[in-house]
């Protein structure tokens, strides 16, 4: 039917290596999400601080992260900062790029979530004797994270997909990088990348279904 012989065995023989790559991909994605959430909370606090310069820094971060390609951000982390004599390894550059992107998108999600929490709750906390920090920590933050749980899941999926961009800065240990290297060795382009695609699909499905299960356990009343 096709003038092409599929050689799945050759590609499947490399499956262990590809799966090692998947582990690195997950490592980058999880790390970038954890740091990203922490940074996003920090950016949200800067925006809430009421200080103009601090708020402007946070807003600039968010707008740049949301309005330029993720690939550009990874380039910046790798080639851009190299102009200052700072040289990161591909792994670190990729992590910085994705984390920057995650933090920007998540901070915007958090802002939306904060709008859904009535201002009166902070005041109620304050009148119960809580400090401003305590009111945020114990009343606002948990609700904010709960409301933005679904967007956070989406961001996690995007973080996984974005790891494939690491190859542009020389990353060759993640799922895409490993597949690309194997492709250079074997020329089974279609078979290898089809396998990588299936693994990516399974990872994203596990994340969405897992998140749904977690949400069901945590957030039912």
């Amino acid at each position, binding site marked *: 039917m096709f003038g092409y012989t599929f050689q799945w065995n050759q590609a499947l023989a490399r499956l262990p290596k590809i799966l090692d790559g998947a582990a690195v991909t997950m490592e980058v994605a999880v790390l970038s999400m954890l740091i990203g959430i922490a940074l996003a909370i920090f950016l949200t606090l800067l925006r809430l601080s009421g200080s103009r310069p601090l708020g402007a820094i946070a807003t600039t971060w968010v*707008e740049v992260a949301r309005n330029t390609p993720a690939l550009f951000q990874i*380039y910046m982390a790798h080639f851009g900062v*190299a*102009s200052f004599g700072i040289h990161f390894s591909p792994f670190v550059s990729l992590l910085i790029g994705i984390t920057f992107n995650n933090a920007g998108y998540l901070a915007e999600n958090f802002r939306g979530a904060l709008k859904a929490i009535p201002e009166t709750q902070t005041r109620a906390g304050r009148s119960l004797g809580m400090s401003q920090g305590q009111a945020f920590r114990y009343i606002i933050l948990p609700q904010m994270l709960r409301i933005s749980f679904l967007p956070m899941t989406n961001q996690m999926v995007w973080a996984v997909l974005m790891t494939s961009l690491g190859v542009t800065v020389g990353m060759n240990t993640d799922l895409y990088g490993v597949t690309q290297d194997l492709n250079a060795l074997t020329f089974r382009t279609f078979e290898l990348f089809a396998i990588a695609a299936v693994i990516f699909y399974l990872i994203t499905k596990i994340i969405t279904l897992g998140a749904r299960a977690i949400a069901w356990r945590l957030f039912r009343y």
Partner: protein
Amino acid sequence: MFDTALSAADLIFLAKGAGMTIIVTAISVAIGTVLGILFGVIRVQLGAVLAAPLTFFLDIFRSVPLLIQLVLANAFMGMVLHLRFSGFTIACMVLSLYTAAYCAEIVRGGIGAVPATTRRAARSLGMSWWQDMRYIVAPLATRVALPSWIGLALGVMKDSALVYVVQVTELLKSTQILITRLQEPLFLLMICGAFYFIISFPLARLGGYLEKRWSND
């Protein structure tokens, strides 16, 4: 003899890259939106069970990195089917389906936001299915869907930076080519980033404004 300063020719080269980014985005968003509306309406009409194959097919485009979609499409067309498509054609085909997959989701959300009672009222007044869709659902769903659609179009523009993988020289790739010649990564990347930002930021703001303006509460 070897000039390493930014010349007018370099700027024209960058502008061509920017033009390519816009052309690829425009074609993909146009085709993708038409397909997305079609797929979205089909999914709503068929219901979850009957539309499951379509849902699965579209889900693939949202769950596999665009880079891999492009490489796979290129390998499939070239090596398997022996079709000599240009990188530009493949980039537009993949990005169109990628857009359609997200657009179908937005359309579905938009149609779902039209109250069932409003639609039943339309049908009780003697409107046909098509009239109901055309005069009742379309205007109401557009209000809900347009802000997300603007976000999608901007997302596709940013993701079009990946089509370099099928030998299409768009803005980021042309920046990279210039970087190898001029050895000024930060400066050139700033120009490139500024271009994306200048296009994306005002439109993103417009989307946010429409969302606020058109929300029901």
